[in-house]
């Protein structure tokens, strides 16, 4: 059980312990319906968090993710109302639109060298402002029936006692994104470059790696995933609310940090982030099921983040101290 000693293993154990407590406290928690429900509500968060993992691994931050998703949702919503639904057109439009928005962030950060938080705070305001302007703040409701039908599909049904259990089609998108991104980080050159730039930008540059290109790629990819998330989100809720993602970036970043990524860059993984999302999902689902007033949810999630990160830092320091001792002994 070597993997239990890793960061991901630790998060997994916490997740299991928490789930066990909830299973005892609430009879609903462990039902398949509740699980599927949790999965469906968090698919979008998970996809965006996977993109954010890359951003955080290179030591950056992107607070415009929610605004990007909102703007792309508005874009495809308006398009479908005007021109009708065609899967390939709408899907392509979502990812291309998102990638352009992300590339604008990436270009400002890597070429003009403005700090990531300043750039993305600015574009957060710009992107969400445009989304509000285009819609006048009003929801887009009359989406084409074909699109609504698409969003209602299930991948496959699992026969269960008391009906069949259906996996919603949106889960497929998450699986593909997670697999592709995980593979990229592990096996492609760009993955190595991402970790190197995040771990030590100067060493990476000396090794002939262009930091600006890696940054541009990562922020564009974040935009690409935000666009895809917009498509998936719209297919779940069948309407577009231009302000649905206000403040969502905090949840995305929280999931990545809970998943064990170092906010200073250099470490983080898709598996960890997925566990972080699961942890957030289980906490808020559990609080709802045990009837904790919703105002407390944010406080408790905040406490979790602060505790988890502090614990991680204390452990790291302890490890370093042990190392120092070995050095002296030699």
């Amino acid at each position, binding site marked *: 059980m070597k993997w239990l000693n890793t960061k991901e293993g630790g998060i997994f154990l916490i997740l299991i312990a928490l789930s066990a407590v909830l299973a005892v406290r609430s009879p609903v928690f462990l039902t398949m319906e509740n699980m599927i429900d949790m999965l469906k509500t968090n698919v979008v968060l998970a996809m965006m968090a996977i993109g954010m993992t890359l951003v955080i691994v290179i030591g950056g931050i992107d607070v415009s993710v929610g605004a990007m998703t909102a703007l792309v949702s508005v874009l495809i919503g308006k398009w479908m109302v005007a021109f009708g639904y065609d899967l390939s057109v709408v899907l392509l439009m979502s990812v291309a639109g998102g990638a352009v928005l992300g590339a604008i962030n990436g270009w400002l950060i890597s070429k003009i060298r403005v700090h990531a938080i300043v750039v993305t705070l600015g574009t957060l305001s710009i992107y969400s402002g445009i989304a509000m302007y285009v819609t006048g703040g009003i929801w887009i409701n009359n989406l084409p029936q074909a699109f609504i039908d698409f969003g209602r599909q299930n991948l496959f049904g699992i026969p269960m006692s008391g009906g069949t259990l259906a996996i919603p089609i949106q889960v497929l998108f998450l699986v593909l994104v997670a697999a592709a991104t995980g593979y990229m980080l592990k*096996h*492609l*050159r760009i993955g*190595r*470059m991402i*970790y*190197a730039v995040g*771990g*030590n930008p*100067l*060493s*990476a*540059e*000396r*090794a*002939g*790696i*262009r930091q600006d290109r890696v940054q541009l790629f990562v922020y564009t990819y974040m935009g690409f995933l935000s666009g895809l998330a917009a498509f998936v989100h719209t297919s779940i809720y069948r309407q577009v609310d231009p302000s649905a993602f206000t403040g969502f970036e905090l949840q995305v970043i929280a999931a990545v940090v809970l998943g064990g990524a170092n906010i200073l860059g*250099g*470490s983080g993984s898709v598996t960890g982030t997925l566990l972080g999302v699961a942890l957030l999902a289980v906490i808020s689902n559990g609080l709802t099921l045990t009837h904790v007033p919703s105002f407390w949810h944010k406080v408790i999630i905040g406490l979790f983040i602060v505790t988890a990160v502090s614990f991680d830092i204390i452990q790291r320091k302890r490890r370093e101290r042990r*190392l120092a001792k070995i*050095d002296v002994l*030699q």
Partner: protein
Amino acid sequence: MFGIETADEGEIRLHGRKINPRSTTEAVRLGLAYVPESRQTQGLVLTQSITRNLSLSVLNRLTNKLRLIVRKKERQLAESFISKLDIRPALADMQAGQLSGGNQQKVVIGKWLASSPKVLIIDEPTNGIDIGAKTEIHKLLRQLAESGMAIIMISSELPEILSACDRILVMRRGRMVGEFVNDGVTQVDIMNKALLGAPVSSLPEGGASA
């Protein structure tokens, strides 16, 4: 010289061909390698394993037709350099940050040897590492030079220079002030030039700001 800063004046020739790298990426492609003075801040990614540090400058050679990194090739590369340079402990998956100074330096050198450069520029190679590792690194540099690699060592440690170099160029405030062939040169000769030397009018070949 490695494309980090552009030269104020002078030119760089490699095999008689004028080169002018404007980025480190270009310098690497031209066959230059630069082992920086500070291995922790400029040389290594401390949070990554020895293997990943060693493979960083040669990722394009470890890929297959689909441009995917072949783990096995990477592993072989790492193992071969760990044994060639006698990196201890010989654990390919160990984090670079956990190694001693001398072994960290060996990883940095190994990383660049993996790119099989024509010219190796090495800045203060034995700064802050123990005597044993120092001798090993000197021996290694000597072997490399004998195998035909051009090595430019930048050092402020005179005994090291005298024991390791064939040709010595003395620089003072960014200007070349003296050139020696290392036969019977003493520390005093070098210090005289370094402290009192007037700029040499004709810049020797290879001289430029790094």
